[in-house]
């Protein structure tokens, strides 16, 4: 409470500008309501279907879109091969979102002596920033190379236009004319029923599913990130009407980073099963489960004391298991649920596992998020335990019309066993609230455009900056975002 009172004091001015900006966004909304467009998103223009055919609201898939994806981006109408397309057809869509946002979070801030100008200490201080900004840029290109042979490549940038491959894969579908035999190889989104790559929200904390990324404080496992696209090979099987789906993936434990830098021979498996049930007037509901089990390196061979990228051994295990559900209550309202029970090996719990920076292969401790190296003779602190936790995500969506959707999300991640005895039981617990809307002023098979609004409250116990009294605070971050999300 104190923190909110404090933040109120410092936010008078920013709030005034927030109101102004919100009004500005509203004017945009009203002015734009009569706009039209004639753009060509890749799949929609190929098949002449509106976005709403496959998406509950772009990019979240509905059951029809899920079937289209599971069939290798094919309608299965004998017109899927590119030979049936106009030779000028080029399956590319780009997406970017100009935004205005407000972020308010606690930071560790230096305290100055007003007379001498010397730094006398530091304290927790809420910084609120507002302004216009930009999301990253995605170039989606995907489609069929021939009937039952397809691809998806997605070069994606951060807001500074620094690119990486978010997705790059080829797939072969309906092998031996069976929908139960589909293979993909490359870097791809895991077969999550509630996919983070199709999330409807954009803020830093609200634009991901916390359940998919949670790991205990000081945990060294760089892997186990269900929300990230991963390198590997996936088998997918599904019934003709896509009511029953099963998948098994063999993945490199490198969290989607190129160059085989994090482990010499560490693999993981991701397994899913879900079954849809026709519940009459309620709709087609889906129930499923997943298991993500594998191992990752904790010990890197060293050269002059520095870990050697790609030399990771000493593999230790981890697991993430849970249930998924997609429940429709008529055509307008649905609730999506993901639960998770997670466990990391005790070595990860004590910070081992990331002696090499996974994003750039830099040996620690030169730079990056680094941890200790499990070199021979290393002993765990007495009483160390394998950390475990439970979490869930509940996302409710109200589809007023195919062009307007409201959503609310609640996420809770709760530690059940801390790696080090004596650690506060709630350290690292996360609670996250998100509400938002997306309004498409027009809906065609040519382009996507949405007025996007979103508010997010993120709380994590015991991981914030240290306040003036020397106590560790909790993270409390709020984000407000309005944007014009478009793809062409």
């Amino acid at each position, binding site marked *: 409470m104190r923190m909110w009172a404090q933040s109120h004091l410092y936010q008078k001015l920013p709030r005034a500008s927030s109101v102004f900006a919100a009004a500005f966004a509203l004017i945009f909304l009203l002015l734009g309501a009569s706009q039209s467009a004639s753009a060509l998103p890749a799949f929609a223009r190929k*098949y*002449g*279907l*509106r976005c*709403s*055919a496959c998406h509950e609201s772009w990019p979240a898939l*509905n*059951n*029809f879109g*899920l*079937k*289209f994806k599971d069939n290798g981006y094919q*309608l*299965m*109408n*004998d*017109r899927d091969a590119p030979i*049936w397309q106009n030779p000028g057809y080029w399956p590319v869509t780009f997406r970017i979102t100009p935004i205005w946002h407000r972020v308010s979070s606690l930071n560790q801030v230096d305290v100055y002596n007003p007379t001498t100008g010397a730094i006398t200490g530091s304290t927790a201080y809420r910084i609120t920033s507002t302004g216009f900004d930009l999301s990253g840029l995605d170039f989606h290109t995907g489609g069929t190379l021939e009937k039952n042979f397809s691809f998806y490549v997605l070069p994606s940038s951060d807001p500074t236009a620094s690119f990486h491959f978010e997705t790059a894969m080829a797939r072969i579908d309906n092998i031996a004319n069976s929908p139960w035999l589909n293979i993909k190889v490359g870097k791809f989104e895991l077969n999550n029923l509630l996919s983070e790559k199709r999330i409807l929200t954009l803020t830093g904390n609200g634009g991901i599913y916390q359940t998919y990324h949670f790991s205990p404080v000081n945990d060294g496992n760089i892997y186990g990130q269900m929300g990230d696209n991963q390198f590997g090979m996936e088998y997918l099987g599904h019934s*003709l*009407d*896509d009511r029953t789906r099963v998948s098994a993936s063999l993945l490199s434990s490198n969290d989607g980073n190129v160059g085989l830098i994090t482990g010499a021979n560490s693999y993981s498996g991701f397994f899913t099963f879900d079954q849809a049930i*026709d*519940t*009459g*007037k309620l*709709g*087609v509901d889906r129930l499923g489960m997943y298991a993500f089990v594998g191992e990752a390196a904790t010990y890197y061979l060293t050269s002059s004391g520095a870990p050697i990228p790609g030399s990771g051994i000493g593999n230790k295990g981890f697991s993430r298991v849970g249930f998924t559900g997609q429940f429709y209550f008529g*055509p*307008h309202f649905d609730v999506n649920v993901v639960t998770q029970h997670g466990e990391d090996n005790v070595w990860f719990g004590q910070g081992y596992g990331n002696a090499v920076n996974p994003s750039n292969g830099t040996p620690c401790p030169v730079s990056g998020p680094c941890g200790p190296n499990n070199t021979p003779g290393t002993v765990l602190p007495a009483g160390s335990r394998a950390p475990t936790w439970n979490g869930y995500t509940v996302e409710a969506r109200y*589809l007023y*019309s*195919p062009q307007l959707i409201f959503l609310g999300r609640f996420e809770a991640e709760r530690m059940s066993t801390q790696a080090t005895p004596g650690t506060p039981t709630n350290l690292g617990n996360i609670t996250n609230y998100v509400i938002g809307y997306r309004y498409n002023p027009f809906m*065609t*098979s040519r382009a996507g455009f949405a007025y996007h609004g979103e508010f997010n409250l993120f709380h994590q116990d015991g991981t914030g900056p240290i306040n003036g009294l020397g106590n560790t605070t909790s993270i409390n971050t709020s984000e407000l975002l309005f944007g014009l999300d478009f793809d062409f």
Partner: protein
Amino acid sequence: MLTNLLKCFPWLSVVVALCLPNAAYAQLTTYQLQDWLNTPAASSHIGNLTGDVHAAALPYRRFCVGCHGNLGDGNGENAVWFITPMYAQPRNFQLAIFKCRSTPTGTLPTDQDLFDTIGRGMDRSNMPQWNPLSKQERADLVAWIKHYSPRWQTEKAGTPIQIPPEPEITPERVKAGQAVFAKMQCYKCHGVQGMANGPSASTLTDDLSQPISPFNFTDGSRPKCGSTDTDLYRIFMTGLDGTPMPSFADNIKPDEAWDLVFYLRTLQPHNAFNAKEREIAHQLGLKPVDPNAPAQ
């Protein structure tokens, strides 16, 4: 100022005169459809499902309107891009003429027929298989489709044709089927080998004068109205209304119809349905029909 306005008046009058009837027509059509939404004909019954026409407004807008249009006239925003005969034009529901029926030619299809078509889709067109939708949604959409044409208010659906049980396949039946193929001159459109290259193939148009191709049995395509033996039987006994494919119910006896089904199977590449037929054709050393052979 006033003078300028007066000068423009004749032109304005012309513009208004040209625009008003179009606007009135569009509004009238929309109003009519609103009224028809509440007629008893705008409903559907499939098994124990009852379609709710009002519940279909949202799924129609989500899934169908891009091709079939707001008025159900097949003039959705994408219709202009479907170039026949490669892509069939979207169905005009206002005409209430449907290819895939279990009912005699010229009659309205049953609700079940429309329901099946939505779930099965139309191969070689942009009409996908909508079976991921719930059965209730598909039943609702059937009711919605029926509100587009006054035919549903004045006519009842036809009575489904009787299809006798499929007999055992024999070499004699396959040969007899080939004779029916020749006698009915199926080759004129479908070609002597079923390759859609008969002498009339390139001249075919549908009822809306759009070019249309006959079915090619040899390229692995699925027939638009179903792939089973019973579906094939039904297709040529009911005809595909709105296309040059007529009904042969008056010309082919039920027994002969099954013979023809067996023969047509021999023209198709290997699939889940024709292993026996192809084996028999191979044993018989079956040759394509000869259009110049004397009638038997």
